[in-house]
């Protein structure tokens, strides 16, 4: 059975399906022929050496890059290029490798921005403070406050984000991504630059997000310990190709993955004859 058929068979149930996806920058193939299906409620890690195409994959799914070939299925609908301005409506939220926070805004405002898409009231209704717009805003405030509480950020709600430590900023970004109750959450290196304690805390948060929101989570991560402990399945990219996809145990035993990470022992093989 071809990969396309596999995708077609599961597209209804999958939270995210990627079908023969290719993307190149100039002559460099960032992604070539990727097929990937993520089941609802799954925590899926994407790993691979630097430059393997992990961030490109997430950028395609969140609409920042337009792929050369292939399609992305989100919630039973397929896109040649995911429309960025409809991401929130599709129930997709993400965080960025290099934080995309508003440093001059308070923690609360940064999180509340994540709800901006949901506003139905028009510009004038908001300015005039019509009852519908006011109710919407009150609900948004309440929701943002609840999420701040969940991430232990309530004490810092009025601090400017630029004044906070890197680890806390990462938590603020996660809070913003979660506030609109996404069905699919894309995390680009959520643990990068964190201390061991912060990593442990964040691992707990990610599990809790999955359990409480019944969200599907796709995360790029370099810390193999975290990946193996946290994810249900692991996809491995190398030079833009998918070289492994399976449970953490299966990936640990996958020879292609070991080769990609440690390098193939050509010298030893050559030396065997001696």
């Amino acid at each position, binding site marked *: 059975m071809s990969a396309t058929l596999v995708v077609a068979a599961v597209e209804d149930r999958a939270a995210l399906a990627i079908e023969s996806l290719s993307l190149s920058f100039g002559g460099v193939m960032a992604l070539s022929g990727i097929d990937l299906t993520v089941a609802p409620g799954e925590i899926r890690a994407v790993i691979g050496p630097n430059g393997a195409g992990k961030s490109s994959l997430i950028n395609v799914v969140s609409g920042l890059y337009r792929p050369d070939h292939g399609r992305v299925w989100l919630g039973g609908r397929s896109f040649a290029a995911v429309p960025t301005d409809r991401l929130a409506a599709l129930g997709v939220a993400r965080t960025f490798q290099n934080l995309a926070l508003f440093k001059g*805004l308070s923690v609360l405002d940064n999180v509340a921005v994540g709800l901006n898409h949901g506003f139905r009231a028009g510009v004038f209704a*908001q300015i005039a403070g019509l009852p519908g717009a006011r109710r919407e*805003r009150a609900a948004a405030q309440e929701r943002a406050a609840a999420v701040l509480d969940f991430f232990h950020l309530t004490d810092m709600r009025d601090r400017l984000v630029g004044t906070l430590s890197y680890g806390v900023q990462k938590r603020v970004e996660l809070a913003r991504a979660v506030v609109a109750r996404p069905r699919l959450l894309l995390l680009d290196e959520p643990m990068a630059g964190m201390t061991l304690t912060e990593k442990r805390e964040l691992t707990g948060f990610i599990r809790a997000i999955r359990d409480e929101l019944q969200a599907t989570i796709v995360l790029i991560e370099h810390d193999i310990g975290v990946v193996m402990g946290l994810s249900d399945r692991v996809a491995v990219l190398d030079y833009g190709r998918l070289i492994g996809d399976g449970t953490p145990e299966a990936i640990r035993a996958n020879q292609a993955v070991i080769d990609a990470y440690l390098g193939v022992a050509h010298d030893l093989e050559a030396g065997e004859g001696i």
Partner: protein
Amino acid sequence: MDLSFFTEVLVGGLLSGVMYSLVAIGFVLIYKTSGVLNFAQGSLLLFSALTFVSLIERGLPFWAGILITLAAMTAIGALIERVVLRPLVNQPPITLFMATLGVSYVIEGAAQLLWGTQVHGLDLGIDDRPLEISGVFVSTFDLFAAGVAGAMVAVLILFFRYTGIGLGFRAVADDPLAALSLGLRLDRIGTAVWTAAGMVALVAGLLWGARLGVQFSLSLVVLKALPVLVLGGFDSIAGAIVGGLIIGAVEKLAEVYIGPFFGGGIEGWIAYVAALGFLLVRPAGLFGQKLVERV
């Protein structure tokens, strides 16, 4: 030096500075969100004053005139954003500036076609009697203008603080790239900002029109706003207010105390000298964001 005379000049200067701030705020709104120095702000101001006056002269009541003009300004602001600036997104600032320069002539031409070229008097119903407050004479009209400006700034602050669109505006102003990668609806925010700039132009246009008479040279008040922006910073509303006050005070004080040495008439250019001197010391303005680039 006569202290009460000094105070009178100073207060007069500060109040006329409020009028400059009104114009400058229109610039700041657009510059902050889109990085465009909107040269058409002056024409918008002229167009609003001219439209209002012409409607009144055709016998419409005051409030109908305000509402129709407001609707027109909203439409024009939204239209400029949609038709001219959105297609030019990601172009260098000078291109955008030239585009707004072109727009300003289109608007002035349209105003001429619609309403003709004669000078109109605009009476807002405030008699300009000097008011004596503890020995200092203050113009009633200037006080009224300051009150209106204060109210307008308060409305803008409420808008930015307490609406979703306002939050979006602050987000875009803080970090346009982050806003873009989040997929914030930049189009909606852009339309809202241009609408707001149109409203500010209306308020400024009415006050300036009542002060100078509604004529085509009214669009040249943009040139008065430039030193204010240099002083206060192009991206700060607080800066536009403080800058306007300082420029207004400097103009009047310089005219009275330094003017005689030059044979008078320095009010017209002293603001630019002040701005030029200030540029050398603080290029980003009093409240402007410093541009620090990593190399």
